[in-house]
């Protein structure tokens, strides 16, 4: 096995990083148009995971995640506009269902695509202000979540966790107390190190998941559960240590830390938490 990004993939990651940083301050529909026009929605799984990690890093407000990893794998195509899907037969907390142009419904008889406007979905307020979720009245739906949908949430969570870690590192390198930078205290260092290890572990399993999807390897479903569970575990640790290390400053609306903590947590709670996916791994 070769488990290193090749030159092209590293270049893609650099390009994505730069583009997202440039585009993120623009209005939301402009961001979405840019990503669509760049063809990122059509990226193969591994490249898609790299893109989603960067979008997660930037608290992306667009319907990219649901369009690329919920709608597309069910229908085998991209929607007119944005898309999402209902997998779990309950239709609660469906990403982007309030504004997606097309919604794929996974039923026992196959996949049905309906215009989003027909669903009468109601957006539900949640902790992350940029994540759109809605309840859908969907009946007679069977269970089954595509691997890519799990991988997509995992990659997004990894990106958000990386962002939290970066913000925390910047904070503890400049803030001084007792005449010392916070980052020189071992209690701080050890928490930061544990956050790093958790991010590396979740990211490796996310890349592996994307790779098994790309190669249609028989381990792909197990790998998707591992990625989602690891991202959830990572989120739990990074949230706890990240908010703690930031101190009172992280507890405010003005500080952007809250945005990324919420994105990471939302990715864990959607489509099953770490615990649910650990259990699912054992029977997959």
């Amino acid at each position: 096995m070769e488990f290193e990004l090749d030159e092209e993939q590293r270049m893609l990651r650099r390009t994505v990083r730069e583009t997202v940083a440039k585009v993120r301050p623009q209005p939301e529909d402009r961001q979405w148009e840019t990503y669509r026009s760049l063809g990122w929605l059509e990226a193969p799984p591994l490249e898609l995971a790299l893109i989603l990690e960067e979008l997660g890093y930037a608290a992306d407000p667009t319907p990219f995640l649901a369009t690329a990893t919920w709608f597309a794998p069910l229908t085998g195509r991209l929607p007119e506009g944005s898309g999402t899907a209902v997998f779990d037969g309950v239709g609660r907390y469906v990403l982007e269902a309030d504004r997606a142009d097309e919604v794929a419904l996974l039923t026992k008889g196959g996949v049905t695509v309906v215009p989003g406007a027909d669903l009468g979905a109601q957006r539900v307020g949640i902790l992350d202000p940029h994540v759109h979720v809605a309840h859908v009245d969907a009946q007679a739906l069977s269970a089954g979540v595509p691997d890519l949908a799990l991988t997509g949430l995992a990659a997004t969570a990894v990106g958000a966790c990386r962002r939290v870690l970066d913000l925390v590192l910047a904070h503890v390198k400049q803030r001084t107390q007792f005449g010392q930078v916070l980052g020189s205290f071992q209690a701080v260092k050890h928490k930061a190190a544990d956050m790093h290890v958790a991010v590396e572990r979740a990211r490796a399993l996310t890349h592996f998941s994307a790779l098994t999807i790309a190669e249609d390897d028989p381990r792909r479903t197990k790998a998707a559960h591992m990625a989602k569970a690891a991202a959830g575990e990572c989120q739990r640790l990074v949230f706890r240590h990240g908010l703690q290390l930031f101190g009172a400053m992280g507890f405010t609306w003005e500080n952007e830390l809250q945005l990324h903590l919420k994105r990471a947590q939302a990715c864990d709670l959607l489509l099953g938490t770490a615990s649910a996916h650990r259990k699912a791994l054992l029977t997959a």
Partner: protein
Amino acid sequence: MKLADDPEVEEFRAQFSAFLDARLPTEAEARERSHSSAHVPDWARRWQRTLFEHGWLLPGQPPEYGGRGATLPQQLAHLEELARRRIYHSFNPQGLGIIAASLLTFGTEEQKTRWAVPILRAEITAALGMSEPEAGSDLASLRTRAVLDGDTFTVNGQKIWTSGAHDADVLLTFVRTDPGAPKHKGISALLIPTAAEGVVRRPFGSIAAEDDHDFNEVFLTDVRVPRENLVGPLNAGWRVANGSLGHERTLLWLSYAERLQDLVRDAGDAGAGQEWYATLLMDLTALRLLGHRQLGPNRNAAEISVLKLLGSEAVQSASLHALEAHGADALAHPARTGPYHHMHHEDFVSSWFERYARSFAGTIAGGTSEIQRNIIAERILGLPR
């Protein structure tokens, strides 16, 4: 990125596999068991020599040192194949992986011939004299003193935790040769034969059993060592020490992967349907993935700390879960918790308690978990020292 191995790695693995099928000692031959990390039964010495002569002992080395110039991915395949079959290639792992390997990097031609090759051919065994009663994590503060007079060092001091010293023929010993220099700059590496006058070794029991003798105290009193036994330049011992621990460190994670794999097998019944068992599977997969990433050109020495921390703590956590899952049955000691294999001397008579207790070797030896976290924070995340 791709899932499959390169063809030259597959080919290499197949060759080694065929060699093992043909040459592995039988169960009858391999009856005598090793009782310390430097005690090598005669059959195991013959086995190591066979590997040496066929270039399968340290495949990354040239043929004269028991190898075949293998690439790093091929070396990984070699160790994976040994682990998969539960085979040891040497019953003196530190002699092979640290001492002989250090001599091949830092030693003179004469030292390679006189010491490295006999260790590789299992004619002699070696142990590593690093830690001292007052120098553990802070290894560079070691105080064992060596004074050079003419062509002879006189060594006085004490080592501890010296694994296998009582069964070893030679110790690679780190000593202070310049007490006036900053602590990292006054250390040298010396080969000290255990038969030398003034060397006293006292093995002591481990947490597992009073007669489980691998640890030693080594007392050195006016031991005379010829200058030709100095490894590397005088006062450059810290570089040798880092190199010593650096040897095979790139693949050190594999020993944790092997233990995790053993736990996957041995704790399968107890772990059925348990979330901790899923965590174990995830830790093993993540460790392998991150380890493979270290094979590429972008590897970073500090990343080895990530692998050690992740691997050793995963082993410990899963061992505790397995212990608890067995309830009061886990008290039985000794107990058979793994399958018997004549080429693998661990676990099969270790109780779950012993396996959990031994997992602390991973989080304490070779740089504690606390030291690894400091390295990650300082060298990867850029926090101040």
